[in-house]
């Protein structure tokens, strides 16, 4: 079975979870043998931008040591064989088209989505 995970909500609880939980479950399933790719749209297109960094969270005297790194999560997924698609129109809307980004991603226009989605057995929208 081949699955396409579509991510639409960026930075959802990432400070609490120390990761993006959809990328995390994708990583966990890949390690269990899953065959899945990702399509980033809406605010998640920012995940591919190089140079982003999160300062560890501090609430009162409680300081977090390990901050989330969603960019590294994506790189890990790509390194594990997942294809990362990026919706071109959303990248343009967010003004990110010309920003340095993760090299392993593939841009796709909205017109290409029907063909892309039909290439998968299941499509999950998060």
């Amino acid at each position, binding site marked *: 079975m081949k699955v396409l995970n579509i991510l639409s909500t960026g930075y959802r609880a990432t400070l609490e979870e120390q990761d993006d939980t*959809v990328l995390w479950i994708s990583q*966990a399933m890949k390690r269990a043998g899953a065959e899945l790719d990702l399509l980033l749209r809406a605010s998640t297109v920012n995940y591919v931008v190089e140079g982003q960094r999160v300062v560890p969270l501090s609430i009162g005297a409680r300081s977090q040591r390990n901050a989330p790194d969603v960019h590294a999560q994506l790189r890990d997924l790509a390194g594990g064989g997942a294809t990362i698609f990026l919706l071109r129109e959303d990248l343009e809307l967010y003004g990110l088209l010309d920003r340095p980004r993760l090299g392993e991603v593939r841009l796709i226009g909205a017109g290409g989505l029907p063909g892309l989605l039909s290439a998968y057995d299941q499509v999950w*929208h*998060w």
Partner: protein
Amino acid sequence: MTRTRLTFLLMDAPFESSRTATAMRLIDAALDRGIDVNIFAYEGAVGLPLAAQTAHANAVHGRDATEEDHPLPREWVAALRDKAVERGLAFDWVNCGLCVEERGAAGSIEGTRRGTPADFWAMAAASTNTLVVATA
């Protein structure tokens, strides 16, 4: 004849989103149509089958606890489980184990079990289709 099986992933915590009630209605409708169902509770959704949920009175409504008859997600889960049993259908509710631990949310009703993302993948792979009901 091949049986139809659907997998649902739920993600919202109880009492936070109308998506949960809608998802429960979809699962109920699937059972009505003789469809086997799997549910993977991810993140806050592991709170849905918590046995400790308690109905409360509502002074604003002017009703005591009995009159208020406050809905509890654990009762919805139990009702779906029982309907599946009555109809000879599969009903496999799996709570993401790490999600349970980080929330201290152990203590789910009978008929649910602990699992991992690998269980979700196996459920989806054995299903006709999968619906992810994610937190917005």
